[in-house]
């Protein structure tokens, strides 16, 4: 009987060998995949197993952690002034995962990042609990406050940048939400979270309007069209007359492109056209330049591409495929032309920074628990949409808008301010309330420290560029003032 016995021995050996192989497969080959599987609760347990690192603005944390007595999660995230900062921080919830900075910099905040390995090892040897690192943001608390309070109970968003570096100074979106309300995992938390879903709350408070919502930019886009005209040499003298009939018919159409109100647009100079926001002048300009040149200039300003700040901002759109009248309409910020508030702030910033567009970012540095900097973001040039000479011409035009045009309500005594208003029609046959836009920058002796874009979803029946000037410009003004104040404090 020994021959079959030996074979059975081999069979049993194979059974054990199969188990060993399988074990190596799941615990070595597939280990990382299983370890970081989205359904693996250990990820969450680790995330809340120790106080989470903080997100810091102006040297002060805007987040915190409190100890709880849950079975899975020892600590819970708290937020200071949650609704105001939500578009910056995102949320970190025990039950609903995390997003934005809380998610993107999770490894640093939990202290699991490979770059913290040395810290962790020291802590382990000295018997200290693991601690999370901090994320230092570029935001300006006063500017953020001005933006958030300026928006008030209106629906809208503000994005402010430092044109010289691309640092994001303010990022507000209203209506907002308080991430503290659902940071835990209890029934109360999930109720609070579910109440925020867009199908329950029509206002969609969790939408980050500053980065993730695109609006038709309306007349503020005329700044881009003007830049395209200067860059392509269509007109060089901003005070010379343009070849612009009024009324002007859209190409391939019998439909005249109307101006808002009774304004002097016939053969108006670029400066006057921007000052009064002449649709005829800029519509024709876009048509004269053609779609390709317009598209190229828009893309230099950052259109048609997502921006990572590192939080992703939706791509703004200058349509690549459209007919001639569509292009003319897009040149005045209508048709399928869409932009995020961040994108329009980038447009204003590029002009203010003498034509150089800096890549926007909001994480200045990452800090280890022992306060060592482990990563520092350096300002980075994104593109040069217009020459410094043309940028200065455009600045002069935008400053006229604020001095004596549609944007007078953004004037700040003793400070040079440039801006452009906009009112974007939307809805079928303009049936819905328009969006009020304002983009602007303030300028001091050493360049421009702040560029702002404000959009307010039509809460008002005001039409025309008055809306942008009346609703949005005062908010932009207070944001710029807040930045200027902190500048002079330094």
């Amino acid at each position, binding site marked *: *009987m*020994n*021959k*079959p*016995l*030996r*074979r*059975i*021995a081999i*069979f*049993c*050996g194979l*059974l*054990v060998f*199969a*188990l*060993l192989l*399988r*074990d*190596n497969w*799941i*615990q*070595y080959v*597939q*280990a*990382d*995949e*299983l*370890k970081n*599987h989205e*359904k*693996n*609760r*250990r990820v969450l*347990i680790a995330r809340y197993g120790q106080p989470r690192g903080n997100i810091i603005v102006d040297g002060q944390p805007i987040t915190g952690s409190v100890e709880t007595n849950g*079975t*899975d999660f020892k600590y819970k995230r708290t937020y200071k002034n949650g609704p105001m900062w939500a578009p910056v921080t995102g949320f970190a919830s025990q039950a609903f995962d995390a997003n934005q900075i809380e998610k993107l910099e999770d490894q640093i905040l939990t202290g699991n990042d490979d770059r913290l390995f040395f810290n962790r090892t020291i802590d382990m040897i000295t018997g200290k609990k693991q601690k999370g690192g901090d994320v230092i943001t570029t935001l300006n608390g006063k500017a953020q406050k001005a933006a958030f309070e300026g928006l008030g109970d209106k629906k809208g968003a503000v994005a402010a940048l430092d044109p010289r570096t691309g640092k994001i100074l303010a990022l507000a979106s209203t209506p907002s939400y308080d991430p503290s309300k659902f940071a835990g995992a209890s029934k109360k938390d999930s109720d609070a979270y579910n109440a925020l879903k867009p199908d329950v709350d029509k206002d969609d408070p969790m939408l980050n309007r500053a980065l993730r919502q695109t609006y038709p930019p309306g007349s503020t886009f005329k700044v881009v069209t003007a830049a395209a005209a200067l860059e392509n040499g269509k007109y060089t003298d901003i005070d010379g007359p343009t070849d612009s009939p009024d009324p002007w018919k859209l190409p391939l159409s019998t439909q005249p492109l109307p101006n808002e109100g009774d304004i002097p647009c016939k053969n108006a100079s670029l400066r006057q056209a921007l000052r009064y926001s002449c649709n005829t002048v800029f519509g024709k300009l876009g048509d004269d330049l053609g779609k390709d040149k317009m598209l190229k200039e828009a893309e230099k300003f950052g259109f048609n591409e997502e921006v990572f700040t590192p939080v992703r901002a939706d791509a703004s759109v200058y349509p690549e495929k459209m007919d001639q009248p569509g292009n003319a309409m897009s040149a005045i910020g209508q048709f399928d032309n869409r932009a995020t508030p961040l994108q329009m702030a980038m447009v204003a910033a590029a002009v203010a920074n003498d034509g150089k567009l800096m890549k926007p970012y909001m994480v200045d540095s990452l800090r280890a628990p022992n306060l060592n900097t482990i990563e520092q973001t350096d300002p980075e040039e994104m593109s040069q949409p217009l020459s410094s000479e043309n940028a200065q011409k455009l600045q002069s035009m935008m400053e006229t808008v604020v001095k004596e045009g549609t944007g007078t309500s953004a004037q700040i005594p003793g400070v040079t301010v440039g801006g452009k208003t906009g009112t974007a029609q939307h809805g079928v046959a303009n049936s819905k309330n328009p969006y009020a836009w304002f983009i602007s920058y303030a300028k001091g002796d050493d360049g421009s420290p702040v560029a702002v874009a404000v959009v307010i979803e039509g809460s008002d029946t005001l039409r025309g560029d008055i809306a942008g000037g009346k609703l949005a410009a005062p908010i932009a003004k207070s944001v710029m003032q807040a930045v200027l104040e902190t500048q002079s404090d330094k």
Partner: protein
Amino acid sequence: MSSSTTNTTTISTAGPPSRRNTELAMLVFAVIIPVFAYANAGLALSDEMPSGMLSYGIGLGLLAGVGHLVVRKFAPYADPLMLPIATLLNGLGLVLIWRLDQSKRLAQKAENAGQVFAASAPNQLIYSALGVALFVGVLILLKDHRLLQRYTYISMVVALILLILPVFFPPRFGARIWITLGSFSIQPGEFAKIIIAVFFSGYLMVKRDALALASRRFMGLYLPRGRDLGPILVVWGMSILILVFETDLGTSLLFFGLFVVMLYVATERTSWIVFGLLMSAVGAVGVATFEPHVQQRVDAWLDPFAAFKTGGSDQIAQAMMAFGSGGVFGTGLGQGNSDLIGFAANSDFILATVGEELGLAGTMAILLLYGLIVERGVRTALAARDPFGKLLAIGLSAAFAIQVFVVAGGVMGLIPLTGMTMPFIAQGGSSVIANWALVAILIKVSDTARRPAPTPAPTTDAEMTQVVRP
């Protein structure tokens, strides 16, 4: 034992050394390792030495010591590895169960379900003691394993009764594999596997020639005669009945595998394996097509993570994530979250805790320990001198190997989950007691196999020539 120097016979009475001291030395490790593991888990869970440390160490040491003394006295030539490995596995199992007892998550879960969360480790310790008591009983009472041969047909009846009984008791967790008497419940399948191995050994020893030789050659295979095919059909039918009425995939698989292995060893005919595999395939596919319980298991095996979408049981997925999170070296005892698996974390799925907290290294070590027990069992079968002993040893070893493969393979997602327990490690009274008995029988067979032949009786007429006087 008399000196062999004067012996002139060809059979040496020296034999292999008894190796009892080797066994004792290894038993020391088999007790110390779990005691350290216990301290380790306690420190990790509550930053202090667990309070039961001393009693646990003494308890495990006593069990091992008693086992050793009895083996020394009643099975002096037994294989020296089996008792230490069984002790080590049982000891580690206790630590793992104790560690899961400390889980707040499982306590919370039981509370939410309206149950009282009871610690399982103390019960398991009592069952382990009962198991060792049975081990001792078998060694003392069973003078020779061949005595079991007498009970061939009685064992068949007992095994059948044990297997059929659970049908009359309510199912738990979707399977009828328990006999419940008040708060006390046993899983008869665990005992039945030993009894049925006894039956097969006795039956096949008698019938092996008829099964092997009285056959017709057909397409290169030796086909058995119809009447010899009878028993295999009965067992095939029985395992299918278990599958259908008790929805116990594991037990039926175990019995089928056991029977095929023993038939093959007894008859030395490959044709029996071909038949066995064919019939098990037919049975399994046939049952799987109309039995939802089996289908669910197969679906869960094919895509463990689908449970998160469809809302089925996520145990397999949780076990896989536990294994993955353990990685190569594991989180350390007491520092994992294998209790996320839920209520079966300390029984069917206890290997996942090994995987997470001891890592790939620890899991492979445990699997190799099981492999070693099987290897020593097969070696015993090879060394056994009587066909009954050979069949019994290989039957028990194969049953043990198949059970380990089916459970570990199920938990690790290699094969569909069948719902059996890891011998010695998993929480469960029947399992621990039955497996101690299994080891006791193997030890008894190995003792007989390695025992030196008795000194030939001194012949009175060695010197003298017999003279027939008129």
